[in-house]
């Protein structure tokens, strides 16, 4: 017996792209939900932000339904296949926040997708933040840094995050990686920014 991951609708097994994509029959979405997915036109994101995606993100991050990670895992596997890269790096989550949510939402997707990744970025703790000068703090909205000793020399990198919001996070992360010697930094988010 199968039910749609998003709407719970009982699934009469139809062969859709989802069936092929997941190959795990316990995680399928119904054709109704599938119709509501809008693909992003930008190469930086997979899906376009709409009301339906809002609900999906709500189910994943707020209701903490980890099964949704399988949906994004399948999506990202497909999206990343054509790209040439050396390293995948997820945007980090604050450790406190991760404990609160019980899982790291971006890393979980990558794990489910069997995509190896490196966690070279880290969220700063409050003390580290206070060590930065006031000017430094004002410049960046999100505080993280490269873990010491990480070298990205000559690497082609794909940076992954869930939702593209202001783009500030991404450009900061990209800058850090370029400074560490990366050759190229591409961006990929599950969902494009809210318009």
């Amino acid at each position: 017996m199968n039910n749609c991951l998003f709407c719970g609708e009982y699934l009469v097994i139809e062969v859709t792209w989802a069936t092929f994509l997941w190959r795990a029959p316990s995680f399928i979405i119904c054709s109704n939900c599938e119709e509501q997915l809008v693909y992003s036109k930008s190469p930086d994101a997979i899906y376009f932000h709409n009301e339906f995606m809002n609900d999906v993100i709500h189910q994943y991050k707020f209701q903490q339904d980890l099964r949704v990670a399988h949906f994004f895992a399948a999506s990202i596997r497909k999206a990343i296949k054509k790209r040439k890269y050396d390293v995948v790096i997820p945007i980090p989550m604050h450790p406190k926040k991760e404990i609160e949510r019980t899982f790291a939402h971006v890393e979980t997707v990558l794990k489910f997708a069997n995509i190896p990744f490196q966690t070279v970025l880290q969220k700063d703790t409050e003390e580290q933040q206070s060590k930065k000068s006031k000017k430094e703090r004002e410049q960046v909205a999100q505080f993280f840094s490269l873990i010491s000793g990480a070298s990205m020399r000559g690497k082609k990198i794909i940076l992954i995050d869930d939702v593209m919001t202001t783009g500030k996070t991404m450009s900061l992360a990209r800058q850090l990686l370029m400074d560490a010697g990366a050759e190229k930094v591409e961006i990929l988010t599950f969902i494009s920014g809210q318009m």
Partner: protein
Amino acid sequence: MLKLQRRLLLPQKVSPHLFDHKLQAFLVGRIWIAEKMPFHPDTITYHIHAHFIEQFQGITEKNSCRRCGSQNLQKFDCSQCKGSCSYCLDCIIMGRISRCTKLLRWVGPPIHIQLKSPIMTWQGTLTPSQKMVADEAVRHEKDHLIHAVTGAGKTEILFPISEDALLKNQRICVTTPRTDVVLELSPRFQKAFEKIQVQSYYGGSEFYKEYSPLIIATTHQLLRFEAAFDVIIVDEADAFPYTFDEKLRQAVKKAKKASGRTILVTATPTKLERTRFSQRKCYSFIARRFHGKDLPVPKFDSLWQYDRQFNQGIIPRKLRNWLIKCVSENKPFLVFFPSVKLMMVALPLIQKIEHSILAVHASDPNRKESVQALRDGKVCGLLTTTILERGITIFNLQVAVVGAENRIFDHAALIQISGRVGRSKDAPSGDLIFFHDGLTRQMDFAVSEIKRLNRL
């Protein structure tokens, strides 16, 4: 609060009276996720320490959810408890419960609220048979079945039963599987008991921090309660999915105090219920509608291949004529469809007859407003799924079922749908047509049952 904290630090025995009454009012009879408590964590710690609150794990040793009893769990690697954890998939909509989730329950002193008589502000009078049934249910004091035909005025019967429980300082819950019925019942109960706050619980309902002795809730929302009620009235006990879902039956059992009792109210008792309550004193029956007139008997009319016709952009002729008649005579109507899909195909076609006609279904956020619009005469009719088969009373309503042969319309559903017609004393009858593409036993059974009740 500071006083409580200081008290906590002292090595002396905690006084059995020193607890937060607001916290007690909130948590009594509930089962709640610790993280989501609307109180300061220190306050909660104090109450746990002083044994006013019991704290336990979200998933039991035997791998079932402590809130809903489900064993449908999802395993995952948890960053909170640093290892393999699992969470319940069945009640996730009410806030996820994982193995490491802390649940809370009040184990301190019970609440005593002495309500002063008269509690009931309802001014109506019961018919002799309504009064007899209410008295029987009150007197019996144990599990009870009330079999009342549609339109017998069962909500009125529930008023004196509730009043009796409230006077005995009992906590009472009226539960029904359907949100629509909760929405219909809540204002009526609030009006009948103006002096107390009647709380209603359904998916997306208001959040209440206070204690109420009278609660109207969907059976699903009952999962938030444990050993809370002295009396649980299960209204529309036959409504899908209650008859189907053993889990919801367990929810009723769990929400009830060990000493509590259940009163089932239904227009179509199942065989099982009839045997269970076969003893005369456990069973009350109202065969007549409150206005004393017969139940309307459905007429069958064929609507061959209605499915194909709709999909070709045609309203089947007989249905079309019926709709035009209703619109021109200015009589409100409901048309029941077997599926949302077919209804949505039919809607634009039918709107060509009269543009104000609307469609309602389970996931339609505006369905409350749409039903109100029909009641207010702002729209002349609605298309609906079985979602409106019960709990709806509209003056002089005309009813048609499209595809009465469909499996979704079992005899209970068909009897309920028939019960929407002729509910008022001033309009005790109306059109009731089952359009079909072939007859079924369920259709025959519904008609013979209605006829049988009329003979009683």
